[in-house]
């Protein structure tokens, strides 16, 4: 392999940070190839949350006592961390949400319902995860706008050449696209889509749930207007994610959830909203999870997103090479140089559930199903696929065990 100047990471060493790898599964060491669904958690994140609960926990904001101040500092500190992570111009543009799905729903409802109507076009891609598809489909229908899908080429890339024709004479108001496909691993040209969207006067919404764990997400360089991320895929806890939005858009928007904390003044007659981001954070938030989110961002930032991207890229290349040895395995998606650490595949004549179940017996965890991408599965002409996905702690030995397991699948079921 060529010597590169890029930083390398030592996955074998990093595994020691993850207690889960001490577990035996059916008596065998764990080969965890399902990080695209959710990542495992390092001790650093678990400890940060535990420490926060043990030393600094109370409800945030409004409290006048020491603990409430510590808790608020923890929660708002996490916002600063996430803001820096995404290169947001201001941490106040970071809205904590439950996950990426909720972040997208906020935009679809709170922006979409006020800005979409008949004659408008909402454009998504055929690759989208249901969480960046269903909210737009629904809100477009509710608002009477057109809902259209940008098609894929044969390698799972977006057909940017089809954009103009697809838009036709419609008023494109929203372009919503994922940064990395969770099914095919394709890396989408979000910058180009954003430029096209802005030319048309549309906003660009980027689902970076699958991007942020694996590569640098710089919201300013992307040129997007809204970006959604989720903590559990990047070594953080479940139950928290974030929406980044351009301040003027967030300010114009109506709130989404209503209740405590998001208000400025409440009277019998009327209520005025609090400032961004409080306007979007009604009710008690996932406080310790926010702290864990911050710790996870610190953890992966210290390893380096470039090193993580490079590592996964090598794993994807290795995985594709090993799977190509098996003539009865079909892989989907782009070549290694245009793919993140995700490989979807099928074994001739064998249902993914059976593949995943037999692999589980070997301690190899992969995902089998439609990966919340039913429109894409329909396009590929399959009901489901198997998916192996990699992260900073994945080692090639785990991919070798996948391949060994696939031989066993064939032996049992063919």
């Amino acid at each position, binding site marked *: 392999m060529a010597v590169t100047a890029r930083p390398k990471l030592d996955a074998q060493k990093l595994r020691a940070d993850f207690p889960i790898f001490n577990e035996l599964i*059916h008596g065998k060491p764990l080969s965890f190839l399902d990080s695209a669904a959710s990542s495992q958690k390092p001790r650093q994140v678990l400890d940060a949350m535990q420490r926060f609960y043990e030393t600094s926990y109370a409800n945030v904001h409004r409290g006048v006592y020491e603990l409430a101040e510590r808790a608020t500092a923890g929660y708002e500190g996490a916002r600063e961390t996430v803001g820096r992570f995404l290169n947001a111009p201001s941490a106040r543009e970071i809205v904590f949400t439950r996950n990426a799905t909720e972040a997208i729903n906020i935009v679809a409802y709170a922006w979409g319902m006020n800005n979409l109507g008949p004659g408008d076009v909402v454009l998504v891609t055929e690759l989208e995860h249901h969480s960046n598809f269903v909210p737009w489909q629904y809100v477009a229908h509710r608002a009477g706008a057109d809902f259209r899908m940008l098609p894929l080429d044969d390698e799972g890339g977006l057909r940017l050449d089809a954009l103009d024709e697809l838009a036709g004479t419609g008023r494109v108001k929203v372009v919503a696209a994922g940064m990395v496909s969770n099914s095919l691993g394709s890396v989408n040209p979000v910058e180009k889509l954003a430029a096209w969207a802005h030319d048309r006067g549309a906003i660009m919404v980027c689902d970076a749930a699958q991007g942020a764990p694996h590569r640098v997400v710089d919201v300013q360089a992307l040129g997007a207007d809204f970006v959604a991320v989720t903590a559990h895929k990047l070594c953080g806890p479940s139950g928290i994610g974030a929406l980044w939005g351009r301040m003027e858009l967030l300010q114009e928007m109506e709130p989404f959830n209503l209740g405590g904390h998001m208000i400025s003044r409440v009277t019998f007659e009327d209520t005025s909203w609090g400032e961004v981001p409080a306007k979007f954070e009604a009710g008690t938030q996932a406080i310790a999870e926010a702290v864990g989110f911050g710790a996870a961002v610190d953890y992966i930032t210290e390893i380096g997103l470039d090193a993580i991207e490079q590592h996964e890229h090598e794993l994807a290349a290795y995985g594709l090479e090993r799977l190509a040895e098996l003539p009865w395995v079909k892989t989907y998606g782009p070549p290694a140089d245009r793919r993140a650490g995700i490989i979807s595949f099928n074994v001739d004549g*064998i*249902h*993914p*559930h*059976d593949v995943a*179940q*037999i692999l*589980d*017996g*070997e301690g190899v965890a992969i995902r*089998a*199903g*439609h990966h919340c991408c039913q429109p894409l*599965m329909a396009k590929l002409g*399959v*009901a*489901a696929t198997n998916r192996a996905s990699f992260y900073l702690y994945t080692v090639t030995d785990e991919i070798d065990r996948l391949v060994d397991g696939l031989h066993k699948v064939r032996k*049992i*079921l063919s």
Partner: protein
Amino acid sequence: MSDQLYREVILDHYKNPRGHGVIEDADAEAEGFNPLCGDEVSIYVSFADDDETIEDVKFSGRGCAISQAATSMLVDMAKGRKATELAEMPKDELLEEIGIPLSPIRLKCALLGLGVLKIALHRAKGTPLPQEWAGLDELEFK
């Protein structure tokens, strides 16, 4: 674990399904779909002259080994039985026949065929589907 799951009799039914096919002009038929994994099963039943005894059962569809093998086993069990009795057949009777421990996800695979058969029979007889199928609400029956 998987060695147990894919024991010989399951593999036999999976590789050599009994009653694979379609009955034209069936007396009872229904189809079901498991959106989780895309498994599909259609079942066709013909009654004997007494309009009650099950003369023939066939199934078509695609899916995982468990759903296909379980449906094939069900076909074996159904032939010659009375429609009203079979429409009330407890899940456990089929699960005992399958004879392997199933996780909740795989349970849905295993019971897809039985659900479809029950719908077909209840529909043909005009009787309501028993309440116990409410737990399988992720399956879609047509």
